[in-house]
């Protein structure tokens, strides 16, 4: 069922297609027949040789436009037209074959030649004239005229005339009718303007009038129509030229057929030749002219389009460029970078706007020369610039000049620091042609850099270069600047060795950053050191710092903790001015914060409330002082931070350095939001080999004695030997302090060791040995000799070494 339906449908489609094709063929046949009948009315030779055979034109256009399948229509019509005027059906058939074949061949040739139906190129016009008309129509003329002769319709001697008329008529059909029909098929243009319509009416009116006039007088003035054909072709191209040619040729053909005007005399062949010559001229001229004009117009339009496009692109580029230029100028302004170009032979310098601004001028205020460009440069820098430029010229090749920092003084007297970079381009023979460069105004950067450097220096002065070496006391400190802020911070720590052998430990935090905070910090650190030497009680020290802050009216809030630690007893006393409390870690890792003795930050209130807190830092215990940066982080409360520090303490504090590193790693990580200062201290046993290095100043003696006593005690040296050794050491040390360095500063090194039941003492200086003088002069060393088993003095060019030994009972 289904197959049957499909078949019937496809059969139906095929049938309808055939039907449509047959209909088209029939329409073509009808048109061919009618125009052929029209043409035959002008028949000149027998009844079927006519100078105008528009049917051929119709057949050609039908083949070109509708396809070659319409040939049966053409053949049928040609047969029907020729049947009544031929001697028999065979002759009519032969003629019809010729009449069908000629346009078919013409269509094939034209399509092969790539004809455009618009006939808007010269080659289209040439193809229609030579291939479509003159060549192809040889077929129909030869077959038609031959048939006439063979069927005895005309005598053999008339063959040339019959052939010529036939050929000319068919050719005219192609030349005059085909372009006209094709012009009708042109795509619609927009409605013509009124002036154009009037022009077209005048043109065709004049053409018709002139054509009739020329064709009806005996004067040979047919050529008068040519200007009008030119007009039509020039102004209206194929749309005008094709109908004009049709009109002119039609009128001429009518005149030729009716033997009027120029065609009144002469033989048939003469008249045909005249007519053909005229029609050919008309057809050629109008087709060629129209094609050439169209060609030109198209070229012009293409050119105009290209020009318009180019213009658009130029406009776009220009706006892009100007935007880029603006952007560049803005960028230069923001970066304080100006650019310049120096055309050396002309000594013309062009400056970017920013160059003018950097030099304190309005942009493009005046034209610049090299001299003008370096006018503001300070003298010593100007000399260098000239030297650099001359050296570059001398080298005579393309090169980058060395970067050059120089100063200029503006009209208002202010000074700027500029960083110049330049490149030289040379011409043939190394002749300097052009130099381009940039100038960077680094004044502000330099200023910021200088301030930063000052702040950094200050910062360094705030923190101890290195922690003092205190026998029996392990110290470790860390300072971690904030990573988010390039400025120096306001945290500090300090360790002060007090005259009584105690150790002062301070940590503090000045709110804020930068030069100001740093300088406040510096003042406070130094004043605290001074007060620490004068005052015994930590609260008294903090009280005096408080007084200073109040007197100086420092606006910053300052918190600090000051601790005094006695290494001998392990006692600590501390005062806290609004600072995070110190953490005391017992040897077993248990930790507690020393939260008493807490008072407001220094300078925060007028009255002071500082009191001493006390605790004991037994051997193996650790005290940790820190600033809030350690325990305060984004997303973590201080309480949590404090708890984490306690947790970390439980992991052991034996190695103080490692402990500090671990605390920082675990509590802080890589991102440091605020500066961190950390100071840890713990009493440690003295080593069997004790080494001390101190300044050779009288006030160190007491603390040295304390250390020596402690060492002797820890080494279990019995009291009498210990006392003798202590006094001998004191004498040797005092001797260095008194004599070795004169008025200059120097150091003493003291080494104590216990080996084989003997204490060995070495006191070393790097000064000059002076022999004892006077009654008292030698008393010290004599005393030492009396107390020790052996005393050797070894004066050398680079210092003196005193070696002493005493047997002890351990």
């Amino acid at each position, binding site marked *: 069922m289904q197959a049957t339906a499909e078949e019937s449908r496809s059969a139906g489609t095929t049938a309808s297609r055939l039907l449509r094709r047959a209909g088209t063929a029939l329409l073509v046949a009808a048109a061919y027949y009618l125009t052929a009948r029209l043409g035959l009315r002008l028949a000149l030779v027998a009844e079927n040789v006519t100078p105008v055979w528009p049917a051929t034109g119709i057949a050609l256009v039908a083949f070109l436009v509708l396809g070659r399948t319409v040939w049966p229509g053409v053949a049928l019509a040609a047969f029907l037209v020729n049947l009544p005027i031929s001697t028999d059906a065979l002759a009519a058939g032969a003629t019809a074959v010729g009449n069908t074949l000629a346009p078919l061949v013409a269509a094939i040739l034209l399509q092969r030649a790539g004809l455009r139906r618009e006939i808007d190129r010269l080659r289209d016009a040439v193809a229609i004239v030579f291939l479509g008309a003159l060549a192809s129509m040889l077929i129909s003329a030869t077959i038609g005229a031959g048939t006439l002769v063979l069927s005895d319709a005309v005598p053999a001697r008339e063959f040339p005339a019959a052939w010529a008329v036939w050929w000319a008529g068919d050719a005219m059909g192609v030349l005059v009718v085909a372009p006209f029909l094709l012009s009708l098929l042109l795509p619609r243009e927009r409605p013509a303007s009124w002036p154009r319509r009037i022009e077209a009416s005048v043109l065709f009116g004049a053409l018709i009038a002139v054509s009739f006039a020329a064709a009806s007088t005996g004067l040979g003035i047919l050529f008068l129509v040519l200007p009008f054909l030119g007009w039509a072709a020039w102004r209206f191209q194929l749309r005008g030229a094709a109908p004009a040619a049709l009109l002119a040729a039609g009128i001429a053909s009518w005149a030729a057929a009716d033997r009027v005007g120029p065609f009144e005399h002469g033989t048939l062949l003469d008249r045909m030749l005249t007519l053909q010559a005229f029609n050919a001229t008309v057809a050629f001229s109008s087709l060629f002219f129209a094609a050439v004009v169209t060609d030109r117009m198209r070229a012009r339009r293409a050119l105009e389009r290209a020009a318009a496009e180019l213009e658009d692109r130029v406009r776009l580029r220009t706006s892009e460029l100007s935007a880029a230029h603006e952007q560049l100028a803005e960028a230069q302004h923001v970066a304080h970078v100006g650019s310049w170009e120096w055309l050396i032979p002309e000594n013309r310098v062009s400056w970017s706007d920013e160059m003018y601004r950097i030099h304190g001028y309005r942009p493009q205020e005046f034209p610049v020369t090299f001299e003008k460009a370096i006018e503001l440069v300070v003298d010593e820098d100007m000399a260098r610039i000239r030297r650099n430029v001359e050296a570059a010229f001398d080298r005579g090749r393309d090169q980058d000049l060395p970067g050059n920092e120089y100063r200029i003084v503006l009209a208002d007297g202010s000074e700027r620091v500029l960083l110049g970079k330049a490149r030289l381009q040379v011409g043939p023979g190394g002749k300097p042609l052009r130099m381009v460069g940039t100038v960077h105004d680094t004044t502000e950067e330099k200023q910021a850099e200088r301030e930063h450097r000052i702040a950094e220096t200050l910062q360094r002065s705030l923190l101890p270069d290195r922690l003092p070496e205190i026998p029996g006391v392990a110290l470790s400190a860390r300072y971690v600047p904030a990573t988010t802020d390039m400025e120096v911070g306001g945290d500090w720590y300090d360790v002060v060795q007090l005259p009584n052998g105690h150790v002062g430990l301070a940590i503090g935090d000045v709110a804020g950053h930068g030069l100001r905070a740093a300088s406040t910090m510096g003042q406070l650190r130094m004043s605290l050191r001074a007060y620490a030497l004068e005052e015994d009680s930590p609260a008294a020290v903090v009280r005096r710092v408080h007084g200073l802050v109040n007197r100086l009216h420092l606006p910053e809030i300052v918190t600090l903790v000051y601790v005094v630690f006695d290494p001998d007893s392990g006692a600590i006393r501390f005062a806290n001015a609004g600072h995070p409390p110190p953490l005391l870690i017992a040897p077993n890792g248990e930790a507690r914060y020393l939260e008493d003795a807490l008072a407001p930050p220094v300078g925060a209130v007028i009255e002071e409330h500082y009191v001493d807190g006390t605790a004991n830092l037994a051997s193996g215990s650790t005290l940790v002082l820190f600033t809030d940066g350690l325990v305060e982080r984004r997303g973590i409360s201080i309480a949590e931070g404090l708890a984490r520090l306690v947790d970390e303490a439980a992991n052991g504090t034996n190695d103080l350095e490692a402990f500090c590193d671990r605390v920082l790693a675990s509590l802080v990580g890589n991102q440091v939001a605020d500066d961190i200062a950390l100071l840890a201290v713990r009493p440690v046993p003295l080593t069997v080999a004790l080494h001390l290095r101190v300044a050779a100043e*009288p006030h160190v003696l*007491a603390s040295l004695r304390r250390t020596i006593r402690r060492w002797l005690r820890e080494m279990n040296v019995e009291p009498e030997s210990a006392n003798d050794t202590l006094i001998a050491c004191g004498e040797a040390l005092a001797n260095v302090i008194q004599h070795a360095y004169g008025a200059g500063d120097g150091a003493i090194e003291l080494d104590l060791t216990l080996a084989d039941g003997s204490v060995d003492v070495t006191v070393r200086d790097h000064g000059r040995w002076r022999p004892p003088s006077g009654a008292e002069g030698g008393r010290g060393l*004599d005393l030492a000799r009396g107390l020790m088993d052996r005393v050797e003095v070894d004066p050398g060019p680079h210092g003196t070494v005193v070696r002493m030994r005493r047997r002890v009972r351990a």
Partner: protein
Amino acid sequence: MSDLARVRSEQQGPLFVVCVEGEVDLSNALEMASAIEGAMPDDATELVVDLTDTAYLDSSGVGLLVRLAERLRHRRRRLQLVVPAGSPIRVALELCGIPQIVPMATRLEELRPEAEPGWSSPGSGASVGREEPGR
């Protein structure tokens, strides 16, 4: 004033006693010398420097005592020292020959204002000092 040592003084019967508490070394010897002399009234002739509470005394301290004794002798005033038997500074004083220059008792109570035989002459004290030039 450094807190390394300090001076306390009182009149005890015929004796004017200056107690030196703390440590005396190069750093405070001059200071102590003037403190001790400053504490002594001009009219006191029997003077005692009590070193019972002196924990440390080095050769500059010894020198200070020697010079003090000499100056007082020139003014016809007498200086005596008190140094307990177990004092850590005793050995230094003895090694320096101080007992030969300045009368030295182990306790204040042992001292008498009256000159004892062999102690009276200022000249003899000075000669002893010269004969024993700092061992």
